[in-house]
Structures are given as structure tokens and as C-alpha cells.
């Protein structure tokens, strides 16, 4: 191949217009012309003299699969959620109840605060102790008073049994007679 032809092909090559066969010819030219290159072309020797041994390499299956996995993993996870009416009702109910709870909780807190304020001013420890003792004593007393009639229930049952017995005797006597 003449140097002139090489120049034309080089120009085409850098314009990206060379065919595969033309590129092959260029490569052949550079690899075959060891020391006899003109100065202006010797700079390009390295470009066309690369090792093309691996050119035809085919990527194995695993590589492709790995790439695909990588892509799938990095894809943003978007689920299609159909927000139907039932869910809206659930959500509305939940938030309503939640709001009510908060409202009630707030009320209870305020009430407790109010009660605490009221009581701190009024009583000393000793007064409170006396009051507690009196309350306990009173409740205890009433509890015992209330239980007193229950003691009599036992004797009532015994009394009832006596009545039943005597009634049965009367009935059996009637039958005999």
C-alpha cells in the first residue's frame, strides 16, 4: 500500500468513515512496515499496532447476569398501591380514634394537675395521716357492720332444714294414712 493511499485512509479513519476492511488494511500496513515508516505516520504506529488478540472475546453468561442483577438492585422499588376505599376508611377511623385519645389524655393530665395543686396547699402530713386512719377505721367498721347479718345466714339455713324435715314427715304420714 502506498503512503499516499495510507494518508487518505487515515483521513477517512479519523472522520470515522472507514469500513472494517479498510481498517484491517491500515493495521496490516502498520504492523508490516517495521522501520520504513515516514515520520508523519510513525506517530500512529502505536494506534494501529495494538494487540487485537482479545478482539473476538465473548463475555460469559455470569458476567451478563451480574450486570443485570446490579441494574435490578439499583432500580428504585416502586410498588403499585391501590389505595382503595376500605383503606381510606381504615385510615380515617384510625386517625379519628388517635385524635380522640390525645384529647382525652390531655384532659386527664390537666385534671390531675388541677387536683395536685388543690391538695398541696391544704394538708400537712400529720393531718393526712389522721384523715387516712379515720377513713380506714370507718370503712373497716362499716364493713364489719355490713357483714354482721351474714353470720345469721348460717342459722337461717339450719332453721330452713328443720322446717323442710318436719314438712316431709307430715307428708309421709299423710301418705301412710
Amino acid at each position: 500500500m502506498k503512503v499516499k493511499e495510507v494518508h487518505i485512509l487515515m483521513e477517512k479513519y479519523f472522520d470515522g468513515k472507514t469500513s472494517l476492511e479498510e481498517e484491517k488494511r491500515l493495521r496490516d500496513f502498520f504492523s508490516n512496515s517495521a522501520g520504513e515508516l515516514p515520520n508523519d505516520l510513525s506517530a500512529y504506529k502505536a494506534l494501529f499496532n495494538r494487540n487485537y488478540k482479545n478482539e473476538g472475546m465473548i463475555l460469559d453468561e455470569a458476567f451478563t447476569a451480574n450486570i443485570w442483577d446490579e441494574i435490578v438492585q439499583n432500580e428504585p422499588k416502586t410498588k403499585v398501591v391501590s389505595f382503595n376505599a376500605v383503606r381510606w376508611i381504615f385510615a380515617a377511623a384510625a386517625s379519628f380514634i388517635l385524635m380522640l385519645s390525645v384529647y382525652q389524655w390531655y384532659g386527664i393530665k390537666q385534671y390531675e394537675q388541677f387536683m395536685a395543686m388543690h391538695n398541696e396547699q391544704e394538708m400537712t402530713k400529720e393531718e393526712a395521716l389522721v384523715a387516712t386512719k379515720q377513713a380506714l377505721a370507718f370503712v373497716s367498721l362499716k364493713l364489719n357492720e355490713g357483714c354482721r347479718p351474714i353470720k345469721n345466714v348460717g342459722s337461717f339455713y339450719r332453721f330452713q332444714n328443720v322446717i323442710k324435715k318436719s314438712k316431709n314427715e307430715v307428708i309421709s304420714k299423710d301418705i301412710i294414712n
Partner: protein
Amino acid sequence: MKLYQKILLISVCLFGALNLSAQHDQLLKFFDQFQGKEGFTTVYVTPKMFELFSDIETNDKDFNEVSEAISMLKGVRILVLDSVGSLTYNPIKLYNEVSSVAEKINYEELMVVKDGDTDVKFLIREQGKVIEEVLLLVGAAENFVFISLMGKIDLRKLSSLSKSMDIDGLDYLEELEKY
């Protein structure tokens, strides 16, 4: 279980729990509305006060007897309407009002005693098998008494108190066990 179902369940539970305490509050509000009114004596011994009791040192014989009973309490509320107050407020009406409110919420009747014109009612609030509150209501023509004992209460201990405190009253709760 899906997330929104979980949220709903949690909020229902929360609401239920708060609702119970709010109901309980109804009774306290009743108590509170008569605080400081003429004819009424109200006492509220707070849980805080019961914490302070633990470090009281006294030679009082009664106190040592009672301290065991006191240690099971967390709070005491007392409301007494005296004969002066009964001119303005009807004690029997108050008695009925409180007992109906208490029965509507989670209080159960323990016993009702009618003795002449005096009604005595014991109500308890239970958590599981443990009594959390004892409510005593006394209604008469000229008196109304409301006592609430809060805490983990052992009725037998409570009943045996009157013996140790030199108060008339016999220990019939022990008799109750036999039947």
C-alpha cells in the same frame, strides 16, 4: 398483618385504655365538684402523701397497727355531707347519684345494707383478681359519706383493722369465709 391494620389496632387499644381512666375520672369529678362547698368536708390524700408516710416516725400505738393497712393504699378520698349541708343538698339523692354513676362504670357492688333510714353500699373495682379500689357510700336523711380507698386492698386486713384500733365492730369477714 398490614401496617394500617396495626395502626388501627394500636389506636383502638390506646383509646380503650384512656377511656377507662376517663370513666374513672367521672367519679372523681363528682367528688371534686363539692370540694370547698359549705356543709361538705372533703379530703384527698394523694399518692404522693402516701410516699411521705413511709418515713414517719411516731410512738403512736395505733399507727404501728395501721401502718400495714396504710402500706397497701395509694390514695384516699373522703367526702362527707353533714346535717347543715343536708339542708341544701339531699343526701339520699347524692347517694343514688354516685351509686348509679359507679355502677355504670366498672365498679361492682360488694354489699348493700339497709338499716332503718341508713343505706350503706360497698363497691369495688377489680383488676384481674386484685381489688384496686373500695368505695363506701353511706346515705341517710341527714348524712352522706363517700370514701374511696385506692390501692391493692385486702378486705380481710381492712376488716381486722377495727379490732386493732379499739373501735366497736366485730370481725365478721372471717365468719364469711366459712360459708
